[in-house]
């Protein structure tokens, strides 16, 4: 098919190199069934949390029926109720919003701290690098969940604080990745050329090196979202997140006592976390392959 079209068209087909690197990456990404599956899962989960409240307008905290009603028993409560008689489906919809919001916010905080510290360390090297990396290593020896637990309880367990706590414990890996990318790119000719024509350090860092360091950072950002979602779920499972905001982890935490009588209360929100993180991981893997076509053989 392809051969026929190329032969019969008089105009030469554009060479693949003519496309931008992002378009090329998308081309690879699109052809990966696993990556597309991940993208579809993520779109569905997002749709559920965004459009859900309009299609299924039930308050997640409202007591709607007898406690621990199994799924399917009442036609208007498709996924049953929890130990207080609250609607499970409404909980899944509302819980997704908090989980996703905190996950994305925490990942953004992680990326900002990590990229700033990593790029300064990688760009300047020497004493700056030494100091920043010792600082990074210090944060790396703190067990992340324990540290976040302490921070959230010492201060107030609001969603903002939870996102901040996750960000503060998660950035070291991003910083190390950014640093190694900066150290590699810093020595390349186009960077020397920019410096030779008198570009300022901050111009070189943010406008020249950072854009070229983006592919691995985008992959890392994606995986960070998955990690942050798991983190938020863990904190709210322990009951250390905002008790006034429904989240998937909170549903599991408050339902675990009734685990053996009511499997759905714990299983369904966990399944949602699993699917969301799976989607994020698949997209991350797909992006990794798309940005490094050579690595795909592995």
């Amino acid at each position, binding site marked *: 098919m392809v051969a026929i079209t190329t032969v019969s068209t008089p105009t030469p087909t554009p060479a693949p190199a003519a496309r931008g690197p992002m378009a090329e990456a998308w081309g690879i990404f699109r052809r990966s069934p696993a990556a597309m599956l991940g993208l579809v899962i993520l779109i569905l989960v997002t749709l559920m949390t965004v459009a859900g409240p309009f299609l299924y307008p039930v308050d997640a905290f409202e007591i709607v029926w007898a406690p621990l009603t199994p799924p399917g028993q009442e036609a208007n409560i498709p996924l049953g109720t929890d130990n207080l008689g609250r609607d499970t489906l409404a909980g899944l919809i509302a819980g997704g919003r908090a989980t996703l919001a905190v996950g994305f916010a925490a990942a953004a905080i992680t990326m900002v701290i990590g990229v700033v510290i990593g790029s300064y360390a990688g760009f300047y090297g020497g004493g700056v690098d030494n100091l920043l990396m010792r600082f990074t*290593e*210090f944060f*790396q*020896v*703190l*067990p*992340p*969940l*324990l*540290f976040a*637990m*302490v*921070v959230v*309880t*010492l*201060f107030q367990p609001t969603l903002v604080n939870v996102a901040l706590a996750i960000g503060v414990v998660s950035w070291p890996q991003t910083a190390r990745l950014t640093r190694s990318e900066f150290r590699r790119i810093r020595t390349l000719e186009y960077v020397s050329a920019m410096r030779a024509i008198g570009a300022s350090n901050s111009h070189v860092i943010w406008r020249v090196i950072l854009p070229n360091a983006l592919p691995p950072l985008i992959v890392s950002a994606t995986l960070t979202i*998955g990690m942050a979602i*798991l983190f938020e*779920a*863990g904190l709210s*499972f*322990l*009951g*250390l997140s905002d008790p006034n905001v429904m989240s998937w*982890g909170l549903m*599991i935490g408050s339902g*675990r006592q009734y*685990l*053996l009588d009511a*499997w759905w209360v*714990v*299983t369904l929100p*966990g399944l949602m*976390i*699993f*699917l969301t*993180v*799976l989607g994020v*991981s*698949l997209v991350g*893997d797909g992006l990794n392959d798309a940005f490094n076509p050579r690595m795909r*053989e*592995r």
Partner: protein
Amino acid sequence: MFNRVLRQLLYAAALILAVLVLNFLLIQLAPGDPAQVIAGEMGGANEEVMAAIRQQYGLDKPLLTQLGLYLGRALQGDLGMSYFYNRPVTELILSRLGPTLLLVAAALGFAMIVGTRLGLLAARNPRGLSSAAVTVLALVGYSAPVFWTGLMLVILFAAKIPLFPVAGMIDVVKQGGPLMRALDIAHHLVLPALTLGLVYLAQYSRLTRASMLEVLGADYIRTARAKGVSERRVLNHHAFRNALLPVVTVAGMQFGAIISGAVLVETVFSWPGLGTLAFQSILARDYPTVLGILFFSTLIVIIANLLTDFVSRLLDPRLAGGR
């Protein structure tokens, strides 16, 4: 060699000191009266106790003096008093350290042994079924929240297949000698260790597969094959040893995360370790205990990092020679 060890130990000591300073700062930064924070909001914080705390921590003195007092006592092993449990924090933590270390060691051992074997199996045939299975397992293991996997195992083993106990560490009803006791603990350990181990098993199998594929393309493997070494020996001896290095490095780097996972797993299986203690003392706002646990677990991570470095050098003499 000696110099390097000394430098590493000094660096570890600096990190430990930094963690103590962080603990001190956290108490200072927390909203409210530090004495109130130390006494715990739910503990018996009467005026007498508060006055004793103010005196002991020197809370009326300048901040630097307070820091000095705190560090001085911490370095002597005194991390303060838990007003909730009414016991010294260090004593409380040491009584819970064993179960956590046992859980982490069992989970990590299981993950490393099974994970690397699976990765090896997958690397033999990178396009085969076992390879695909390892990839899927890695994704599933990474994506499922560890506490949820634990709860699913509880459903399975509490009701459907009552093969392993789903809570606690020792059956109080059972009587018997030390061997019976050890077997009982091992029996209780199966599910928590499996739950915690699965996450890392998934990662290590994938990592082993990737590094094996990389190593198998190396010249020394071709040399080994050319001189007639059996394929089995090439894989198990020449390649595997080198492919193990990234796994050891990553396991060392992940130690903090593994302890974090242990907190969740202990909570699910009521395993009487540091994790359940952390959880209970956070609920009770027993900050001296909470901060003590943070300090001890960081200490474990630092020690684990030193050990990882040591093992990597054993595995790869090139690392030991240079620098």
